[in-house]
């Protein structure tokens, strides 16, 4: 029963009509509009994807790509518009309906259940009996067919991120979908893994005549991997191109809506090539910073997670005053642990952290902050701010002493401090009492940054500072980080986006499996070598 893909809900027609002479587009969306409150996520969107192509859906964060795809997969109902699959109109009310139509999606945040086995995860979301033997066999078969080897009996929580990505792919491909949607699939992958992924996608479209939609905000990726590209901006489609007929510049312009400086283009839209050209210019700029004071020194840090898995394995790094050290690496290689360590959330099994030459006890609540380390965490919604408290309260969180008299808060001081920071950091808000939740992502990020800088830090740690922001906010962040360094703060920039690091960093270190595997100055950058180091190859 379950050896057959679950296309048995009366939709066999889709598969049958696929090969007819004048091919209707595999997917055609017309006039799709979706509002959330007063925010228009999709505005009269038209998207047409031909069978057998890899179609790039390019746009900044917030452009409406994810919403559009959620509509296509039944997670969100559109307010109006028409969805045609292979020329027939359909109504996708539910993820199961989407699955029945042969639409399958690999989500940006994984949809796997950690404590279940690989085969259980793969069969989840299907219908009919659970046949363990055939499900396990299928994992192996699909894995072999596409070069996605993974042991069906292992628990997902024991897998690496790359392996989990494979399970996600198997989970989709196992249903033999006609249309495969991938949402920012490479953010957790090494360069090598990304290339493997693209070659799987290529095989799927060429040999099996399936259709792929690749959602991305990285230009390189779109240029490298797609046949056609649709560009979205602020909820609307602004351009459609054959990938072969376009270039980075044009894509960037369409995506952002104006000409962008080379540097901003680098971190905002992922134009790696433009950045590498710039390196020559940067060569002479920073040569003399060897002599500067060491602000942050982490030596031989070892740490283990709650599940007894090693997080850091002998990580050592130093950051000097006035310098931006970019820490490059594929997500899940210990960046989060390093961020936690510098936020006093992680204890070390071994090793030391020194701030301005003084040892700081790791894991002791508030110790790093007291020593002068400011942190803008990557997941600012989750751990950078409290969405249910007010803007003023969020600005005061770590430094209650400044707004309190004795052990009571002074509403006046709270307010005046907030007003000062709001104007100093250009935070767009109706007033200091507004709930944090009501601010836009960019403004939330500003609040966190303002709070950390207001404490006059010696060291500033910024993790993925531009993730999820629009171009305006990215420019703002970039500028602020540079200013912070110019004012003498030692900045540690943790990012998975090489482009962001190349834009900002004076020196680059690469993290892999919880340790620094290589370092180079901005002038010596060689993207290929960086990529190999990020993938764990000695270079």
């Amino acid at each position: 029963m379950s050896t057959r893909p679950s296309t048995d809900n009366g939709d066999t027609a889709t598969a049958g009509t696929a090969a007819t002479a004048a091919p209707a587009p595999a997917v055609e969306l017309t006039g799709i509009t979706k509002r959330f409150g007063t925010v228009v996520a999709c505005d009269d969107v038209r998207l047409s994807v031909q069978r057998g192509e890899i179609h790039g859906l390019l746009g900044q964060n917030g452009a409406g790509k994810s919403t559009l795809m959620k509509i296509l997969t039944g997670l969100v109902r559109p307010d109006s518009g028409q969805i045609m699959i292979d020329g027939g109109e359909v109504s996708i009310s539910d993820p199961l309906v989407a699955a029945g139509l042969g639409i399958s999606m690999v989500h940006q945040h994984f949809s796997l259940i950690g404590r279940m086995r690989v085969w259980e995860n793969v069969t989840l979301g299907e219908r009919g009996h659970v046949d363990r033997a055939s499900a396990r066999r299928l994992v192996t078969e699909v894995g072999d067919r596409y070069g996605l080897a993974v042991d069906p009996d292992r628990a997902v929580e024991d897998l690496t991120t790359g392996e989990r990505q494979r399970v996600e792919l198997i989970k989709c491909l196992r249903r033999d979908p006609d249309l495969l949607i991938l949402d920012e699939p490479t953010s957790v992958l090494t360069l090598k893994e990304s290339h493997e992924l693209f070659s799987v996608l290529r095989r799927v479209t060429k040999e099996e005549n399936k259709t792929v939609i690749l959602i991305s905000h990285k230009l390189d990726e779109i240029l490298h991997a797609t046949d056609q590209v649709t560009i979205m901006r602020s909820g609307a489609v602004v351009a459609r191109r054959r990938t072969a007929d376009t270039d980075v510049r044009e894509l960037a312009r369409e995506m952002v809506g104006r000409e962008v400086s080379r540097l901003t283009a680098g971190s905002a839209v992922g134009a790696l090539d433009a950045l590498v050209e710039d390196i020559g210019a940067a060569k002479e700029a920073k040569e003399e910073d060897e002599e500067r004071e060491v602000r942050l020194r982490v030596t031989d840090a070892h740490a283990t997670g709650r599940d007894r898995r090693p997080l850091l394995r002998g990580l050592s790094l130093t950051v000097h005053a006035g310098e931006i050290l970019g820490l490059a690496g594929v997500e899940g290689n210990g960046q989060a642990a390093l961020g936690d360590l510098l936020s006093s959330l992680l204890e070390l099994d071994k090793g030391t952290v020194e701030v301005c030459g003084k040892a700081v006890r790791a894991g002791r609540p508030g110790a790093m902050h007291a020593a002068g380390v400011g942190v803008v965490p990557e997941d600012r919604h989750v751990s950078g701010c409290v969405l249910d408290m007010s803007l003023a309260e969020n600005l005061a969180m770590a430094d209650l002493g400044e707004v309190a008299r004795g052990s009571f808060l002074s509403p006046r001081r709270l307010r005046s401090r907030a007003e000062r920071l709001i104007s100093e950091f250009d935070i767009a808000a109706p007033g200091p009492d507004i709930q944090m939740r009501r601010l836009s992502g960019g403004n939330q990020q500003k609040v966190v940054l303002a709070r950390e800088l207001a404490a006059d830090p010696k060291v500033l740690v910024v993790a993925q500072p531009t993730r999820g922001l629009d171009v305006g906010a990215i420019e703002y962040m970039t500028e602020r980080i540079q200013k912070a360094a110019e004012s003498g703060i030692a900045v540690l920039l943790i990012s998975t986006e090489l482009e962001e690091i190349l834009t900002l960093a004076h020196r680059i270190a690469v993290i892999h499996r919880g340790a620094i595997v290589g370092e180079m100055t901005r002038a010596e950058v060689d993207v290929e070598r960086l990529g190999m180091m990020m993938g764990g190859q000695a270079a």
Partner: protein
Amino acid sequence: MDDFELILGSAVRLAVPLMFAAIGEWIAERAGTLNISVEAMMLGGAFTAVTGAVATGSPEFGLLCGIVTGLVVALIHANLSHRLSVNTYVVGLTLNVLVLGLTSYLADKTEFFQVAKVAIPWLSSLPIVGSALFDVRWTAYLLIVLIPLAWWLVQRSRWGLEARAAGENPQSADVTGIHVNKRRRQALLICGLLGGLGGAHLAVAEVGTFNSNMTAGRGYIVLAAVIFGGWTLRGALAGCLLFGAADALRLALPALGYELNAQLLIASPYLLALAAMFFLAKSHRGPAALGAPFVRGIT
């Protein structure tokens, strides 16, 4: 019959109602509901079973009434917690207060009704275990069917896979196209069915009549058993047997002339469950989303 046989028989009789409810509680918890209204399900089941038996003269009809009552309690709980997302403990607590008050308010049945005992030929004459296991009220034999069925349902069926996903990681389950709250409601309904049956069994199979607060916290013992068993069916059932045995000992030992602390025995299920969680924290991992409500879009 020697003393051991006697105590064993009593232990089994005391454990059986717990086992019915524990199977249900196990299913509800695997789907993510830490269900404390199982006490209300059992108590309500016990009351209506006797009422139904008195009204029709048929204890079998009483059983049916008990099951229906358990389902009604579950329906209220499921819709409040997994449709409206009211805090599940609050709903459970309120239901317990409600059913305890209601059944005590209405309790005036003194008539005696019991389902028949069925002895299984040959097996019931086995030494020691024969009469304890194979000469019991017929409803107890339902367990022989229910236990493997429940295990298969949760561990092997499509429904169970989805219910467990709902208990482990509702967000991921939702993205995969599983109706998280529907699965949780269904699991709770199964719990209601079995909890009602457990209470009904207690009333019309073992005791034969209803008295105010007759379950006396057995629902919480069931909860303790599932925790003690580390959220495995095997473990939960073993917990029920163990706790039944502790209860049987408490009742039997004074008569046999042993001095034993009754309070310690009564408290033992709770102490053992706490100890199991404390000392075996690593292997005793409950479903990751146990007790957490699921609302789409809220992470």
